[in-house]
């Protein structure tokens, strides 16, 4: 539905021992790939398999259509991200020949789309790995975008018969899963690591596959952080809604029993403060990351929460009219909640190490739990004092 306008037939350069698996191709497509055939999958799931002496290659367009864009928005919003994949195999961009470059991609459709969008006016082969629809960066860490899968796809697609060179361009971010020297040993293809950003690919190809130092570095600028926010936000939202509801309902408790008036006044304020903490931890701190003191994310989130508290508390409750216990309770709750959510942004960042995250969590998590628990208890006590 998406890419297959018509199927190209490409002659195999060297026709020797084509037999083995070619027969059991896709005729019984109900069995083959059954659970996998979601609508995002390009239909000829088994297209990469050679049929007789010809190989069917799916041509793709370098122009993204409306559906592609919609898909990106959906993925960023965490809607059906899991099934956002396409069939592995060999694809053609433009009209590649036997000396055209071969670019390796994950079958996460968003990675693939970004890649082909940069390939206007370029003729190239795209070797799409079966990475279970996860993107290159996440994947390489887990090993599905890896040495073995590259070797498997080279063999499956008979790549050595299609191109006359022995070079593969692998995105540099795939390197944590790919051992270049092992691919060379097992499949004869030399892995050349391409630039980190697909946008640099044309320049990279033009310069004879040399990546300038800038092309090799991962950035994490404000835009990079901004596009990551929606997913982080939605993941955190359900916890916040739940906690807010609990605080809202409990806010009616006081020494005379239960008052719906308090539920509305004090309860709505509580919800506002919790949303502040949430917003500070998931949006403000990640966006202002370089400008907030401290290196640990939990600490940055703590500072952001503290600042947010001072900005918002005076406006909604007022320091003079609130009891000290109530004030302390909200300092504790907002800063610990904000700290927690910012700490979770480590997963989206591009420069945190596992050892570092573990170290900061050993200190931060107990403090966050104590802060939130003590804060909540004080908040409850304050209900009964005034």
């Amino acid at each position: 539905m998406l890419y297959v306008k018509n199927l190209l037939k490409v002659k195999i350069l060297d026709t020797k021992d084509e037999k083995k698996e070619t027969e059991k191709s896709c005729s019984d497509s109900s069995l083959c790939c059954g659970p996998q055939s979601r609508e995002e999958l390009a239909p000829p799931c088994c297209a990469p398999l050679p049929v007789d002496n010809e190989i069917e290659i799916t041509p793709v367009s370098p122009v993204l259509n409306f559906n592609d864009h919609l898909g990106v928005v959906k993925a960023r919003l965490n809607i059906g991200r899991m099934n956002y994949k396409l069939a592995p195999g060999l694809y053609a961009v433009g009209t590649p020949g036997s000396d055209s470059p071969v670019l390796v991609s994950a079958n996460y459709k968003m990675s693939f789309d970004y890649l082909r969008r940069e390939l206007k006016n370029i003729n190239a082969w795209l070797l799409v790995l079966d990475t279970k629809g996860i993107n290159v960066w996440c994947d390489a860490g887990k090993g599905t975008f890896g040495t073995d899968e590259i070797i498997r796809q080279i063999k499956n697609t008979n790549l050595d018969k299609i191109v006359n060179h022995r070079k593969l361009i692998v995105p540099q971010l795939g390197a944590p899963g790919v051992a270049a020297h092992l691919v060379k040993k097992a499949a004869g293809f030399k892995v050349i690591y391409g630039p980190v950003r697909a946008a640099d690919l044309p320049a990279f190809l033009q310069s004879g596959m040399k990546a300038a130092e800038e092309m090799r570095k991962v950035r994490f600028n404000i835009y990079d952080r901004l596009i990551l926010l929606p997913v982080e936000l939605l993941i955190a939202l359900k916890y916040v809604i739940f906690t807010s509801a609990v605080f809202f309902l409990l806010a009616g408790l006081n020494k005379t029993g239960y008052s719906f008036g308090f539920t509305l006044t004090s309860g709505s304020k509580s919800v506002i403060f919790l949303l502040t903490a949430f917003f500070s931890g998931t949006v403000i701190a990640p966006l202002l990351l370089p400008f907030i003191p401290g290196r640990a994310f939990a600490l940055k989130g703590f500072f952001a929460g503290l600042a947010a508290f001072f900005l918002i508390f005076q406006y909604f409750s007022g320091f003079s009219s609130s009891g000290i216990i109530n004030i302390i309770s909200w300092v504790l709750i907002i800063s610990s909640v904000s700290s927690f959510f910012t700490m979770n942004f480590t997963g989206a960042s591009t420069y945190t190490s596992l050892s570092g995250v573990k170290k900061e969590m050993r200190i931060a998590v107990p403090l966050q739990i104590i802060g939130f628990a003590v804060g909540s208890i004080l908040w409850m006590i304050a209900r009964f004092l005034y």
Partner: protein
Amino acid sequence: MLGLKYLKNVSTLKLEENRCNGCGMCAVVCPHNVFAIEDKKAVIKDIDLCMECGACELNCPTEAIAVKSGVGCAAAVISSAVKGAGGSCDCGYDSDDSKASGCC
């Protein structure tokens, strides 16, 4: 990267210089420019930039590099603490959905 450096002295990256043949692969794959090649040997320029992705270790043909690699992701650490093992990052929906395996 402007002001964005993670914790000091936490990376588990180790380089055994006498095994290094100076091929330069580590400097190529590292996303944070941790390595430089000086006098045909790799040197670690700034270990605090290392995010423990493991690319250098995997791509070093002489096994001169060792690093305990993993994903620096709090959610993964939490879920592996809760579920016992094999935590995954937010970006990885548990990929054990065993679909697609053996397809075609």
